[in-house]
């Protein structure tokens, strides 16, 4: 069995899906907060809703009981348990509908058109491409080149190897500055 309150809310959402926000506010004022609207069309909409769903008698009974709510001798003796429950569930559903409208107006749907750069804490993070350059027989002139900066690195890093060789560089670098740089660069494919 489907959850009845959930099912009821869905039907209320569907029934009032074409009702504009202003009218909906007036309907909720009248139905939930017992504050009648000055607009005649609001009364007509509520009447139609009650008739369409065989709720006229239940709504009348509920409101009679509500008027006598302070009188303990006649406390909810007009409408049945199921009528009271239904009208109260409809009131909850109206509030739920109102919140749903509010949420729709606040939270805009995410439109994904094309792949965009990832934004972290308002900072644009672009992928960094890194490459190593060096001149023959001059290990002191090795550069790690990124998109933004060039770094000169000491000769310990390559120590007679070619820059594009795969090296276990961590074991060969003793300079703290270079080690930090290497560790930083190891995050990227060199």
């Amino acid at each position, binding site marked *: 069995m489907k959850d009845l309150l959930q099912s009821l809310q869905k*039907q209320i959402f569907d029934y009032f899906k074409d009702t504009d926000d202003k009218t909906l506010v007036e309907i909720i004022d009248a139905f939930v907060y017992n504050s009648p609207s000055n607009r005649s069309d609001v009364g007509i909409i509520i009447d139609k809703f009650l008739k369409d769903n065989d709720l006229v008698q239940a709504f009348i009974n509920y409101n009679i009981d509500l008027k006598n709510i302070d009188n303990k001798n006649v406390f909810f003796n007009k409408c049945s348990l199921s009528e009271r429950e*239904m009208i109260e569930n409809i009131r909850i559903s109206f509030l739920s509908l109102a919140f749903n409208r509010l949420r729709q107006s606040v939270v805009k749907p995410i439109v994904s058109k094309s792949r965009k750069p990832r934004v972290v804490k308002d900072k644009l993070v672009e992928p960094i491409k890194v490459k190593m350059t060096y001149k023959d027989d001059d290990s002191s002139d090795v550069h790690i080149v990124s998109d933004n900066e060039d770094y000169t690195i000491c000769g310990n890093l390559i120590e007679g190897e070619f820059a594009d060789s795969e090296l276990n560089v961590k074991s060969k670098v003793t300079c703290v500055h270079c080690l930090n740089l290497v560790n930083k660069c190891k995050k990227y494919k060199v």
Partner: protein
Amino acid sequence: MKIEQVVNLERNNSSIIDHPIFYKGEAYTFFDQGLTRYVFANEDKSKVIKILIEKDSFDFNLEEIEIYENASEEVKSKMAHTQLTYNGTIVEQEFCNPIKFDDRDLSISQMMFARKCREEVGWNKDGKLVCFDLNEFMKY
């Protein structure tokens, strides 16, 4: 187990739900259980029979048939067709699939009807929502 055996039992203990009951030439198997009665359905799910759990207690089968027979035709149309058989010991009723076993959507007025009958309502073969536990009909 034949229906005559069930009728002659002093008390219908829970073991009877493990066996089919032969009633009017058909085998009825256990379908559901309420507080006071066991319900068995035939193979093509067109009929059920209701058997009292406690025979010495209030006769809910008799009460159910009295409610049905005293109802107007308009009210009867909201009830599952019901009759009493075997000298008033067995209730035979048209099968309707209880809403607790069914995922069909209910309209608001159907929800109201269901709540009025403590959800003891179901869909009959014509797709109409009817009350099957007449002792609960429109009580709430």
